[in-house]
């Protein structure tokens, strides 16, 4: 029988894959996609517990997380475009002004 633990484990696996993507990729676009994966993992967790406890608040919170993800994607992609104009590339290690 599939219980809430299965969903939590899947959500965590998705989160770990997202964190791995944020840490290892050079391309900013892929890093932003990995952040979307992390937010999806959080949503899955919220909705799994909402289902387990019979409480609608988890679903309502997930609506706000989706709103946040939309805003974050818009701003992040705008930053990527302005970085591309500035540097001519979207690689993270080309933005090294603060490295000293």
């Amino acid at each position, binding site marked *: 029988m599939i219980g809430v*633990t*299965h969903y939590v484990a899947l959500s965590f696996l998705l989160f770990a894959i997202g964190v791995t993507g944020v840490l290892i990729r050079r391309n900013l676009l892929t890093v932003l996609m990995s952040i979307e994966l992390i937010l999806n993992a959080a949503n899955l967790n919220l909705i799994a517990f909402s*289902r387990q406890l*019979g409480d609608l608040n988890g679903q309502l919170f997930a609506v706000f997380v989706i*709103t946040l993800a939309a805003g974050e994607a818009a701003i992040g992609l705008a930053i990527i475009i302005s970085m591309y104009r500035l540097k001519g590339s979207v690689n993270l290690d080309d933005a090294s002004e603060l490295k000293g």
Partner: protein
Amino acid sequence: MTAPFFFWFFAAIVVFGAVGVVAMRQPVHSALFLLLSFFGVAALFITLNAEFLAAVQVLVYAGGIMVLFLFTIMLVNIRRTAGQPYVHRQAGAALLVAFFLLAVVGGTIVASSRTSGLADAPADPAKLSTTTISRMMTETVDGKTVKTPVTEQVAGNSQAVAWGLYRDYLLPFEVASVFLLVAMIGAVVLGKRTMEHVD
């Protein structure tokens, strides 16, 4: 909570898509794998009795955010970076950190699932698709207007979510709309070409 087949099938799709996002060299391939993963998560939402959120997931993520990603991939020139390595120099250390995260939190989930009550049967799914509202009913009795408070049950997941958003979470909902406005203005300002001449 649901038939095991659907969970395992869609979980496999979600994990496959997520691994594809991280592993593919070209960002456009990553974006298509991300789309697959989004659809898998939407299907899992349906198995969790969150039908409204499944629809929102498809509309906002697969519809809106994915189009935004593909437009950006189209605008920035990807070909130029094709020959270079696509992972960081510190990818080995990063993988080690990710593995430790997986081990620690995964171990905690496994350990807590044995001791806590999370293996209990889930609550009644009807709780997620009904909500109780109270309103004033206005009727005319003998030429006079009489207001009486009534409570009634509203059925349907979308209706329940709507009552939660517009009644219980009205202020956060309005703040979220202001947030979206700020994000939109910020994206437009950042994306304007003439900003280059400002500084």
